[in-house]
């Protein structure tokens, strides 16, 4: 049973943790006086590091009355930072940890939610911390890319008898009846992840559709849907030619496999020649908005994801273009990629908010693990960070998640969970719940084996339960 959401200030973990980081923030930056109320965030846009304008406290009474999230997530946008983004250099900074931990990183930003700090690369996200919450105590303890990626996206322990489908495939499966759009229900921008078979035992139909192409190019050529080579008239002529030359099909049209295949071909043509493909035409957006998202692949990935969310696609994954597996060249890579992540993600949240879509669009962003908080200065790493599954950070927003909160905490060097562990089961369970999906439901297995969306027995992994404090 899920307890009703207690007001934020009554949660045992929060005041403690906030108190800790707040005082540090005040000490370091001489920031303005803050009260616990303002940890709820404020809804205005703008504001900046260190110079946060005075915020109108939210309607605390109304917030307290809300015992259940009224908004349910109908679309999920998952931004996957494959390779594993450092948590201590980004969303869980430890300004006092010193050079061995922070390396050249010296600047830390306050945000428009007092008490929440980010590293210097997140200028835009710092202006709107009220729109998202940060989980700083995500943990599964696994340091292998593929096993950790599997854990984070299925919540099942690797090495189980079954290879489970990813949350996206489960989502698409559970929404298959109600989703009526012409695009595939589970889309990946732009390349499939490839760490494990995302559709698992659910079958080829629930394999994510990978767009290919580059949304930042002058034309976003979605592989198989938007073709530069074949104009529509020729496309139609070819389709007719194929229909008349498909001789075997005419003889074998009653074969169930052939019939299903023919139906799938018709579906494909709806995407190739139908209206659905307009979603991928980013030139329909104002140049200023495209600028705001950032004129780089990730920024335009985010814009494309918003357009797909508008079209009702249930589950959209952005596999970050370029990895975060920064064993070496860590700080250089971070300095290049993190600001792009900041720009695209912040623009996405603001845009969803402006369009009134944030209530129904759930965004979550993390990698398969964090990175070792202690810099590895030895050759061959020369200032790199290694895999770290013991604790890392996740950003969640919208779709029923409250903004402006921090869930859990890592210890003072960001090495271990200090408070309120969040397991993959906790995170995915919360996402499923917000989407109205019963995570105890069983999944159809081709061999009739028992399989449930989430593990029946979560085992001994550290867990703090569903994220009720932000739901």
């Amino acid at each position: 049973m899920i307890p009703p959401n207690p007001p934020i200030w009554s949660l045992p973990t929060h005041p403690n943790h906030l108190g800790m980081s707040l005082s540090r923030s005040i000490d370091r930056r001489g920031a303005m006086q803050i009260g616990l109320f303002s940890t709820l965030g404020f809804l205005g846009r703008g504001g900046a590091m260190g110079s946060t304008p005075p915020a109108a406290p939210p309607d605390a009474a109304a917030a307290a009355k809300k015992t259940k999230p009224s908004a349910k997530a109908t679309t999920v946008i998952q931004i996957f930072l494959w390779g594993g983004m450092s948590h201590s250099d980004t969303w869980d900074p430890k300004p006092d940890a010193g050079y061995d931990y922070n390396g050249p990183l010296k600047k830390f930003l306050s945000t428009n939610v007092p008490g929440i700090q980010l590293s210097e690369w997140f200028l835009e996200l710092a202006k709107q911390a009220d729109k998202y919450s940060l989980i700083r105590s995500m943990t599964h303890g696994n340091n292998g890319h593929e096993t950790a990626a599997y854990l984070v996206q299925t919540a099942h322990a690797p090495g189980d008898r079954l290879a489970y489908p990813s949350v996206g495939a489960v989502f698409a499966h559970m929404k298959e009846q109600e989703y009526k759009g012409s695009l595939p229900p589970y889309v990946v921008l732009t390349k499939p992840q490839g760490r494990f078979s995302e559709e698992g035992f659910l079958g080829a139909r629930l394999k994510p559709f990978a767009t290919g192409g580059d949304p930042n190019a002058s034309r976003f050529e979605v592989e198989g849907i938007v073709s530069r080579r074949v104009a529509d008239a020729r496309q139609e002529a070819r389709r007719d030619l194929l229909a008349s030359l498909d001789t075997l099909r005419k003889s074998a049209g009653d074969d169930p496999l052939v019939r299903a295949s023919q139906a799938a071909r018709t579906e494909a043509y709806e995407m190739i020649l139908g209206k659905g493909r307009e979603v991928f035409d980013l030139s329909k957006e104002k140049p200023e908005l495209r600028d705001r998202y950032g004129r780089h692949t990730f920024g335009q990935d985010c814009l494309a994801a918003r357009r797909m969310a508008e079209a009702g696609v249930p589950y959209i994954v952005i596999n970050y273009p370029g990895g975060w597996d920064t064993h070496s060249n860590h700080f250089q890579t971070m300095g290049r990629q993190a600001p792009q992540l900041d720009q695209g993600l912040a623009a996405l949240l603001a845009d969803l908010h402006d369009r009134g879509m944030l209530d129904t669009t759930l965004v979550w962003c993390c990698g398969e693990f964090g990175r070792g908080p202690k810099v590895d200065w030895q050759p061959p790493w020369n200032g790199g960070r290694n895999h770290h599954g013991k604790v890392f950070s996740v950003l969640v927003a919208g779709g029923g998640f409250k903004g402006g909160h921090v869930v859990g905490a890592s210890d003072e060097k960001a090495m271990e969970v200090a408070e309120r562990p969040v397991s993959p089961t906790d995170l995915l369970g919360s996402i499923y719940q917000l989407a109205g999906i019963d995570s105890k439901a069983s999944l159809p297995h081709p061999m009739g084996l028992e399989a449930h969306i989430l593990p029946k027995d979560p085992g001994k992994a550290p867990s703090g339960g569903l994220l009720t404090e932000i739901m």
Partner: protein
Amino acid sequence: MSWIGEFSDCLRTGFSEWTQRARIGKLASYPGIGLRYGIALALLLGPAWDLRSAEPPTPPPAKPKVAEKPTPPRSSDLFTSPLPLKTESRIDRLVMAKLRPLGIQPALCSDAVFVRRVHLDLIGIPPTAEEARAFIANPDAANKRKALTEQLLSRDECSVYRAMKWGDLLRIKAEFPINLWPNAAQLYHRWVVDSLRQNKPYDQFVRELLTSSGSNYRVGPVNFYRALPSRTPEGIASGVALTFLGSRTEAWPQDRLAGMAAFFSQVGYKPTSEWKEEYVFWDPTGSHAIAGNAAPGRPSIAEIGTPFEDAGLAATANPAAFPKEAVFPDGTKVTLSTDRDPREIFADWLISPENPWFTRAIANRVWFWLMGRGIVHEADDFRDDNPPSHPELLAYLEKELIGAEYDLKHLYRLILNSEAYQFASVAGSTSPEAEALFAAYPMRRLEAEVLIDAINRITGTTELYTSPIPEPFTYIPQGQPAVSIGDGSITSPFLSLFGRSARATGTESERTGQVVSGQWIHLLNSSHIQEKLENGPGIKALVSAKRPVNETITALYLAILSRHPGPEEIVTARAYCGLGADDKPDQKPVRPEHWNDLAWALLNTHEFLFRH
């Protein structure tokens, strides 16, 4: 518009456009279609003789509306043979015995269908245009199918293609979730291919898999024990039962699994100082479970016999805790002693001809591979309440395999030379019952690897196969066929899209033959396939040769569909190219891309996409 669209017009056309425009005189003179076949067709068509003087089709309008052009009469004649069934072999008598009472009369497939089918089923690639043309033209109707089968069975691609299927069952994969590690996966695969090349008797093949010891980098078959979803004795027993008994232990009573698991309670694993090297060995003392004892570089074996200090591990490490008794799945009990590896005791029981399951399971699997459906279906789901459709047939195959001392090629020959294997895919009844009784060769989508290899050969192009894990990334030399890639972690987006086995569980169903819209999008319109058609040397060479248009059309048909086009197909293709029916020298399509469109269309037919 719904995500599940309605069926297109294509489904509603079909035979309604049946016309009698076929001009048999022309058909019979058509290159490659022999007089005999032409006459046979003519006899079948009967009144078509009267239509010799039928008017040629009207020239196409500016934008060819080919969909309204007539379709070939009895298109199935392209796919079925006029020869009658003989029902001589034991297999055929047993199959027909079930079909006759239902009034089902299957037809034999045409030579063109056979040459493509047997190439796909044995070597995993369609015949080249030349191979197809030569086989179809060969007048030796009595022997040519048998001769071709024999020739294909001896080709090296046959071993490679069969190894791909074994790779699925044995879960040959470097990374998640099996984690064999790349060099071990390569070694394991090479061992399988070599075993098939030598035509190693199947019982010996299995015994080596179950009883080998040594390093995963040096002794290929030891990887069997590393490529299991679980390494517990129960997990190993479960994998062995699935792979060699065709039985899923999920349906077993618990004590049966426990009894069999005891044979695998002494399997030891230990690392060495080489990165990811691992020894699989018989470990009757439980040495590998002692903490620190199996650390890389430690002389683990030297410590055998020392007292166990770690109380937490004592239960697993203490040989006193090992089961003293094991039970074969047939209920026979054996006492385990410390002087013989229990894996050997099990293997000897397993491969004994008296074992009621072992031979049947592989005979059924070979039947399933070739016929698309097991006599026990699914092929890895033997259980009392899933009886064989043809018990006598299964018993016959079992007896034959034992008689041939587990030479699997003997089974291949028996099945491939039967009429049952050579039934047409399109004839006969459409009832589900008929399908289960092998009334027709079931149509199945080509496997991912086979499909891309065929596309690459036709277009003269190659693919990039890589594995992003572990670093540094693995790249396979361009031009290597996909069916020959041993390691399931080395892949491409195409292979993944078309349902290559994830090699996680070792079940046959892990390789999917579904056709979904995402696959069609890719085939119909991706830059990947377009690039191959437009810029690859294969199609260019076919369409740029100086020859009459009809010969080029025929060349495209032979290269892509392994057969000659039917007369109406020629008319349709010519019409698309803006040409009338008369084949004159120096003609060419109105626009050069018409050739490309024609190749594209043939590549997107069900006839190409499916084995049939």
